[in-house]
Every structure is written in C-alpha cells, then in structure tokens.
C-alpha cells in the first residue's frame, strides 16, 4: 500500500520517466494498432518488428556505429521494405496475407541472423549487443526516449486529426474510398509509415513482443465495446495507457518484475475482461441477460396467472401449465414481487394482486392476445402453435411494438 502511494507521488524521476514512457508508448501503439486491426493486418507489427534485424545489422556494418539514429534508419528501411513486400505479394499473387506475412518475417529474420554470424567474425569488440537492440526493455526508458515517443505521439495525433475521415473510410471499405476519389494509395502510405515508424522505434525501446502486443491487444479489447472508430481509438488508447501505467506500477512493487511483460499481461487481462464482460459481445453479458430475462418472465407469468385467476377468463387446465411451483427460484421471484408491491401475501401461502400488479397482469394478457392475433393473421401458423409462441413473445413486446401490432391488426 505504502509502495503504491509512493509510486503515485512520482517523487522519483525514474518512476516518472518510465511510467510516462510506458503510457505514451501504450497510447502510440494502441492508436496505430486500431488501423492495422481494421485493415486486417494485425500481425504486420510482428513482421516489421522481426524484419528490422537485417536493417540494424547492415546499418551497423556500413557505418560501424551503434548510434540510435543510424540503427533507427536501418530499421526503418528494412521494416518499410518488408511491409511493402507483404503488400506486393498479396496484390500480385493468389497467396493470402497470412502466408505472405509469415514468409517475409522468416526470410528477413533469417537474413538478419545470417548477417549477424558474419558479424561474429568481424573484428571490433563493439559489435556485441547489436541484437540486444532487438530486446529493448521498458524499464530502461530514459528521458530522451520519452521525448522521442512524445514527439511521435504528437505527430501521430496531428496526422490523425488531418486524415481521420480518410483513414476511417479506408479502413472500412477501400473500394468505396477509391470510388469517391480519395487518394487511397497516399493514405495507405501514410498509415503504413506510421506503423513502421512506431514499430521500429518501439522495438528498440521495449522489444519485439511488447510492441506486437501493444499493437494487437488493446485494439482487440476495444473492439468488444464499440464498433465506432472514434470510440475505439479512445478506448484503445485508454487501455494502452492503463496497461503502461499498471505495468510500471506492478514492476515497482517487487524485485525482478519486468515492466514490459507485465504490461502485456495487464493488457491481455483487460482483453479477456472485455471478452467476458463487454455488453452485447461479451460472454457473460449474454449469460446474465438470460438470467434477468428469466426472472422477468417468471414475474410476468405469476402476475398474469393471478390476473387470470381473479377474472376466471381461462380454463383451469390451461392455467395448470404455468401454475407457480414452489421451487427456490419461484419463491425468490415471489419475494421480489412482494417487495415491488405488486402482490400481497395472504394466509395459506396464497397471493393476491395489488392494483399495480393487476394492471401489469392485464397488460401482459392483452399482449399475449395481441400476438396471437398478429401471427394468426400474418404468419400462416397453425392454431395450435400460436399459443406457445405467444407465451414467449408476450414478454418481449414493449410499448412501441405493442403500438405497431395494434396498428397492423
């Protein structure tokens, strides 16, 4: 607990730097990720991340220097080439995207390894650690890195502001974008460049795997909450930022808790939470809505039955079908109804309707009848099927549908 307050006071500049860097990188990765996701190129980040290896090694071989800029340029060139090749192959052959991705990834990485073994024979002790650049660490982010990431974030957001509509249409329907005269090639180029810059940069700072995860996981999670691109961008950025923050926090709580992998874990956790809890698409939501609906059905059935009993408009045999049984669930539902003041308890474990309950019961019965009439008229159903159908639908009909039904009969 103490640790947590200590963390959030940000009195330690290192904590502040690393946390800020993780958050900004999380935002950067997630925002870029949204577009790669929508363009169904999710794994392109992974491919670019692996493909920068030959660029890094060549950059070093040619200029014999391990400076940040030289390596970044090498990475950008080979990352760009790999992403171009993936596009080229998929456009000019029947090969599918995934095969093109895997092929380019493997071949580039293989070529990089080949060059690396050449380096082993190369004299000059400083070549060591060149592949360590592939495994940057999030906890080693320093002030310079934060500035670089920050500049990238600003540039990215500016690009987004300018081109947002174009990106939006492009991601959903490239053909349509082309047909209304958008410069699709140009837009795609801008998008791809953004991805390459982000990945080439991120890989040197935090490593291949965290970079891939930043591109994929927050976006997939955000996709479960919304289908609007703007909200998706916001949510993904939020998830990315949260991942960065909590990754940094967790890695501050104990020794040997690596920041980057914890960010991945937090992001995956968020993603799984979204898979389970997100409204509409989530697994649990469907389950719960079923339970709530069951309660609603039971409540309405009790009210309807009591209403029918009072009015004796229905034969006893027909009523038997849904005579409230004394299951636990049922008693529970009855208790809710009592609490809602829709029924009152009498002696002999019998219930009677209140005024409120009576109104609702009659309403349900009315809807039942309405539906029977409606499907009798329009759906050519046999008489014996109409009743069972209405038993279900009566609970779904709301005010608006009721009006519709009345007008169509």
């Amino acid at each position, binding site marked *: 607990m103490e640790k947590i307050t200590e963390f959030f006071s940000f009195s330690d500049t290192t904590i502040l730097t690393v946390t800020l860097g993780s958050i900004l990188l999380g935002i950067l990765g997630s925002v870029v990720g949204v577009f790669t996701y929508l363009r169904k190129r999710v794994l392109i980040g992974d491919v670019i991340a692996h493909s920068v290896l030959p660029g890094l090694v060549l950059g070093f071989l040619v200029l014999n220097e391990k400076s940040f800029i030289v390596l970044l340029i090498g990475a950008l060139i080979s990352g760009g080439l790999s992403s171009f090749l993936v596009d080229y192959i998929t456009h000019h052959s029947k090969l599918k995207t995934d095969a093109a991705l895997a092929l380019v990834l493997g071949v580039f990485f293989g070529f990089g390894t080949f060059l690396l073994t050449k380096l082993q024979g190369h004299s000059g002790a400083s070549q*060591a650690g060149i592949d360590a650049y592939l495994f940057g660490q999030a*906890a080693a982010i320093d002030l310079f890195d934060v500035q670089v990431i920050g500049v990238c974030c600003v540039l990215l957001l500016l690009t987004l502001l300018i081109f947002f509509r174009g990106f939006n249409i492009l991601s959903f329907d490239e053909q349509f974008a082309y047909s209304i005269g958008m410069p699709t090639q140009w837009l795609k180029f801008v998008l791809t460049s953004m991805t390459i810059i982000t990945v080439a940069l991120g890989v040197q700072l935090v490593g291949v795997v965290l970079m891939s995860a930043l591109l994929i996981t927050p976006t997939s999670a955000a996709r479960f909450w919304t289908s609007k691109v703007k909200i998706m961008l916001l949510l993904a950025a939020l998830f990315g930022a949260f991942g960065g923050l909590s990754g940094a926090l967790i890695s501050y709580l104990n020794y040997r808790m690596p920041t980057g992998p914890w960010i991945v874990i937090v992001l995956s956790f968020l993603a799984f939470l979204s898979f389970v809890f997100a409204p509409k698409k989530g697994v649990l939501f469907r389950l719960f809505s079923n339970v709530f609906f069951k309660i609603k059905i039971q409540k309405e059935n009790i009210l309807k039955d009591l209403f029918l009993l009072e009015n004796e408009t229905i034969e006893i045999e027909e009523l038997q079908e849904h005579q409230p049984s004394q299951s636990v669930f049922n008693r529970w539902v009855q208790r809710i109804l009592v609490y809602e003041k829709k029924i009152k308890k009498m002696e002999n474990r019998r219930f009677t309707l209140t005024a409120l309950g009576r109104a609702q019961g009659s309403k349900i019965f009315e809807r039942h009848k309405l539906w029977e009439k409606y499907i009798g008229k329009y759906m050519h159903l046999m008489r014996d099927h109409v009743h069972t159908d209405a038993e279900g639908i009566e609970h779904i009909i709301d005010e608006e549908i009721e009006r519709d039904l009345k007008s169509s009969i």
Partner: protein
Amino acid sequence: MRFQFPIILLLVILLFACKQNPSNDKKVKVIATTNIIGNCLENMLDSHQFSVQSLMGPGIDPHKYKASHSDIKLLNSADVIVYNGLHLEGKMSQILEKLSKTRQVVAVSEAIDKKEFILVDSQAGLYDPHFWFNLGLWRTALDKTVKQIQKWYPNIDFEKANKYLAEIDSTNMWAKSQLLDIPEDARVLITSHDAFHYFGNSYNIQVKALQGISTVSEFGLKDIVELIDFIVGNQIPSIFIENSINPKSINSVIQGARKKGHEVALGGELFSDALGDAQNPEGTYVGMIKYNVRTIKKGLNHD
C-alpha cells in the same frame, strides 16, 4: 526447374567425393571455445608443439553464440577441445560434454570442486560460469586442464605453463593490492549484467547488477529505482558497462541518479564474457584483468 536435377545430383556426388584433406601440420590443434580460454592456453602451451585457436571472437556473448559452418570444421579438425563448462556455452556445453566420451575434450571447470563455485540453483545444480574472475580458482583450473592435456600428450613442456601461472598469481596479487586501496565503503561494483560475482568475492567488492544472465530476463522498475537510490545514498562515483550488453539500461541509471542530484560517472567499459581486440592490451586474459582492475580503480576513486 527440371534441368537442375542432374546438377544437384552431381553436386551431391561431389560432396561425397570430397573427403577432408588430412592436415600436413604436425602441431597438436587445440580449440578453445571462448577467447579467454584460448588466450590462456596459448600462453601456457608450447607454440612449437601446439597451435591454439578460439571459436568466439572478441566481444561475443558465449550464451548467444551460434556456430557457423567453419567453426564446426574447426572443431572437427581439433585434436583437443577445451571449453568452459557450467553451461556458459549454452546448448554447445551439453554437446561438448557428450563429445568428451569419444574425443579429447576437456572442460576447464571440470577439475574444480563444485563447492568452490557460486551456486545459482541448488536443486538443479547450476553454478555461475564466470569463474575466470576468480584468479586463484582460474589458475588451478588451468593447471588441471593442462595436466589433463598432458595425459594425452605426455611430453608437454611445463615450464611455460608454470611461468604463465606465476604471472596470473602476480596479477592476482597486484589486483588485490590495487583494489584494496579503494576505501572499503566505496568498493561497490555496479554493472548491467551479472558476471562479476567471482570478482567481487575474491577482492571483497560488493557487486550489484541490473540484469540476470539469461538474455530474455528483464529487470523491472523497482530494480532500477532501488539501484539508483543505492547509488545516490552511498554516493557511488561510477558505474560500469560491459562489452557484450546493450549499454542503454545503464545509461538510464546514470540519468536517474543525475536527476536526484548525484552525478555518477560512467566508469568505462569492462570486459566480462570475452576479450577485447587482439592487438590491444585487453586482448589477453591478463591484460583484460588488469584493464578491468584499472578501470574499476579509476572509476571508484573518483572523488
């Protein structure tokens, strides 16, 4: 494509036909895995009788070393193979260990009692392999290695070897005197990677590192923050980087300390897993140790 078949066939036949040409060199070929071992043996074995070569060049991380084709040819042509053992060479250690049943292979760590090593994992029986930084231990190990080679090639001239061992001894003494010069509370060695535990043990220096040996292992925020606090709290004058590790992480430590108002210098580059370029003084084992000692001394005596 079809016309290539005969060519392929031809080449395969050629492959079979080319047998290794027997070397005319009468010298016994000794191959060492790391250039640290290679350099030591070079200085211990008579160059008329033995030729010593090492597989890994300067600046190579032995954990990540991948053999190339010529390396394997070199190994195959070797009469004696010497390796470090204790899993320093990764998967290759396992292979060489197996090879020792059929070939003249010796591990430098083999003859030493395991109790002398720093234990890393008691259940798995894993030890820290960087024991060339314990000069006394390393000297014994080299001595026993040469004796092992003597079993196979009995007419070894031991004079050269003994001379070299004496040089290591004197280097050890010199290093001790140099390092004990440093005030005790300043005797803290901070590096990026965990290779200096033996060094610390033998010269009574506290060793702190950011990262473990495994290349996938990572350090966290707490590790780096505590390290910075430690540096600032103890007013450590310098910290060091190693030649086979990305210097980025140690740079961020320096920056962090600076933010807290303590200017910690980069003491310089230490050699850990491999020697420097052959033409430089730190291209030999003794030179490398001396270089490290001087660097550390210069760095820690900063104020």
